[in-house]
C-alpha cells in the first residue's frame, strides 16, 4: 500500500519544511532536463510518429527526406517555423494574441508533473493531484477562446466558439469517468492511485472500469481536438479554426501544445486505468521495494527503468490508438458531436459511477474480494446501461422534439396554419 509514497518520495523530493531548504538545483535540473528536454522531445517524435503511422494507414511512406527515416523532420519543422515571418493581423489584439497560445501550452505542461511514471517517479504528489490535473487541463479552453477572439477573424472566432463548446461538453464525461478510479482508490493523489494498482491490479479489469476507460478515451480524444472530434479545425468549413491567423512559431506553439496534450492525456489514461508502469497482474509491491535498496537518485532511476519502459510502451499504444481512430473515422457533424456528449456519454458516465460503487462493495470493500460476485453483478449492469442509454440516444436522434425551433421553422408552421 505504501509502496511509492513512503519509500520513494522522501528520497527524491526531500520533504522540506521550509521554503529556503528546497532543493532548488535538483528541481531546476529536473525541469530543464525532463520537462523542457525530454517531454518536448517526446512530443516532437510523437508528431513524427503520427506522420509515419498515418502514412502507413494510407499506404504511404511518410516523412523520409530529412535524415534517415525522416528522423530529423521535427527539427527541420522547428527551424522552418522559427524562421518564418511573424505575422499578426493589423486588427488583432496583439497581447491577447500572444498570450493565447502560451496559455494553451502552459496548460498542457502543467498536467505532466503529477503523472507517476514509475515508483515514486512523479515530479510532485499533491494530495489533490487528480482534481488539480483536470483543473489545469481545463485552462486550454480559455486559451482557445482567446486565440479565436484576439485574431479578429470570423473563422477564428467561429472555430474558437465551437472549440470551447466542444471542450466544455466533453470535459463533463472526462471528469465523470475518472470518478470510479477515485472511488476505488479512495484518494485524489495520482501516486496513491498507482500504488493501489500495484496492489490490486489494473483498474481497467472490471466491467465499470472498462466502460470508464472507453468513455475516458473518447472524451480525451475530444479534449485534444483530434479526429473524429476535430470540429474546431474543420478545414473544409472554417479554414483552420481558432489558429487561422497564427503563423510561424506562434502556430508552432499550438502545434506543440496539441501534441503535448495528446501525450498528457495518454499518460493520464495509462496512469489511472492501465496501472502505470506495472504489469497486468497485481504485484505485492515488495519485490519492487526490495529491489531498490539504493538511496540515490541514480539507484532509483535504475530501479525504475523497466517501469518507465512499460509505462512508455503503454502510452505509445494509447497514442497509437488515437492515431488509428484518426485514420479510420471521418469527422462528426457538430450536432452529432454535442448530442453524443450530452445525450450518450454523460448519462452513461453517471450510471457508471453507481455501478462502480457496486463493484467497490463487492470487490474492494470486503477483506476477501469477491470477484465472481463483482463480475456477475456489474457486467450485466454495464451491458444493460449501455444498451439502454444507446437506445435512448438513438431514439432521440431519430425523432428530435420540435419544440425549440428558432426562426424559420416556427414561422413556417405559423404560415401553414394561417
Amino acid at each position, binding site marked *: 500500500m505504501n509502496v511509492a509514497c513512503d519509500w520513494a518520495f522522501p528520497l527524491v523530493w526531500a520533504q522540506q519544511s521550509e521554503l529556503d531548504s528546497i532543493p532548488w538545483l535538483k528541481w531546476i535540473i529536473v525541469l530543464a532536463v525532463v520537462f523542457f528536454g525530454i517531454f518536448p522531445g517526446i512530443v516532437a517524435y510523437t508528431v513524427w510518429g503520427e506522420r509515419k503511422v498515418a502514412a502507413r494507414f494510407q499506404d504511404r511512406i511518410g516523412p523520409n527526406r530529412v535524415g534517415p527515416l525522416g528522423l530529423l523532420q521535427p527539427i527541420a519543422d522547428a527551424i522552418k517555423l522559427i524562421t518564418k515571418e511573424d505575422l499578426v493581423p493589423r486588427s488583432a489584439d496583439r497581447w491577447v494574441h500572444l498570450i493565447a497560445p502560451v496559455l494553451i501550452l502552459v496548460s498542457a505542461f502543467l498536467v505532466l508533473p503529477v503523472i507517476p511514471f514509475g515508483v515514486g517517479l512523479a515530479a*510532485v504528489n499533491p*494530495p489533490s493531484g487528480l482534481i488539480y490535473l483536470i483543473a489545469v487541463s481545463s485552462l486550454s479552453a480559455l486559451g482557445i477562446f482567446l486565440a479565436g477572439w484576439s485574431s479578429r477573424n470570423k473563422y477564428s472566432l467561429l472555430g474558437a466558439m465551437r472549440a470551447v463548446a466542444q471542450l466544455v461538453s466533453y470535459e463533463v464525461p472526462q471528469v465523470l469517468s475518472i470518478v470510479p478510479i477515485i472511488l476505488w482508490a479512495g484518494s485524489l493523489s495520482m501516486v496513491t492511485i498507482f500504488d493501489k494498482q500495484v496492489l490490486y491490479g489494473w483498474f481497467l479489469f472490471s466491467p465499470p472500469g472498462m466502460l470508464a476507460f472507453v468513455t475516458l478515451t473518447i472524451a480525451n480524444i475530444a479534449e485534444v481536438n483530434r479526429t473524429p472530434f476535430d470540429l474546431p479545425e474543420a478545414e473544409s468549413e472554417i479554414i483552420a479554426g481558432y489558429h487561422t491567423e497564427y503563423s510561424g512559431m506562434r502556430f508552432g506553439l499550438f502545434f506543440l501544445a496539441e501534441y503535448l496534450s495528446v501525450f498528457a492525456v495518454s499518460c493520464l489514461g495509462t496512469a489511472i486505468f492501465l496501472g502505470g508502469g506495472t504489469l497486468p497482474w497485481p504485484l505485492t509491491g515488495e519485490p519492487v521495494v526490495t529491489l531498490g535498496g539504493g538511496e540515490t537518485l541514480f539507484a532509483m532511476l535504475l530501479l525504475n527503468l523497466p517501469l518507465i519502459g512499460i509505462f512508455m510502451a503503454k502510452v505509445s499504444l494509447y497514442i497509437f490508438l488515437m492515431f488509428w481512430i484518426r485514420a479510420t473515422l471521418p469527422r462528426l457533424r457538430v450536432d452529432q458531436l454535442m448530442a453524443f456528449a450530452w445525450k450518450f456519454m454523460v448519462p452513461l458516465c453517471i450510471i457508471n459511477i453507481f455501478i462502480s460503487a457496486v463493484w467497490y462493495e463487492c470487490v474492494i470493500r470486503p477483506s476477501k474480494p469477491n470477484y465472481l460476485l463483482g463480475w456477475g453483478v456489474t457486467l450485466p449492469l454495464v451491458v444493460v446501461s449501455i444498451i439502454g442509454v444507446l437506445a435512448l440516444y438513438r431514439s432521440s436522434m431519430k425523432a428530435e422534439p420540435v419544440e425549440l425551433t428558432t426562426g424559420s421553422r416556427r414561422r413556417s408552421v405559423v404560415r401553414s396554419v394561417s
Partner: protein
Amino acid sequence: MIIYNYVFIGMLLLGAIGFALAPVIVMGILAPRKRSSSKADTYECGLLTTGETWVRFRIQYYIYAIMFLVFDVETVFLYPWAVAYERLGLFALAEMVVFLLILAVGLAYAWGKGVLKWV
C-alpha cells in the same frame, strides 16, 4: 508539506511560459520581416473582410456553457464524495444518488426542451 509540491509547479509554470515565449522571441530575431498592408489583413480567403467580426452568437453556446458549469460544480462535490466513500458507506451512496438525480433532472429537462439539439 504539501505546499512544496506547488513550488515545483510554480517553477514549472514560469518555465513553461518562458519555454513558450522563447521561440516567439527568437522568431522575432531570426525571421525575415517584410511588412505589407495586405499581409496584415485579416485572412478571409483572399477577400476583404466585411462587417463586424465580433458578431453576436447564438444562445446555444450559452446553454452548453451553463450545462457545463453546473456539471463542473457537481464535480467539486463528486470527487470528495468518492474519496470519502470508503468511510461513509451506503448512506453516502444514497445521498449521491439523490444529488445526481437532481442534476440529471436538469439534464433531462434540457434534453426534453430540445436545447441540447444544435440547430
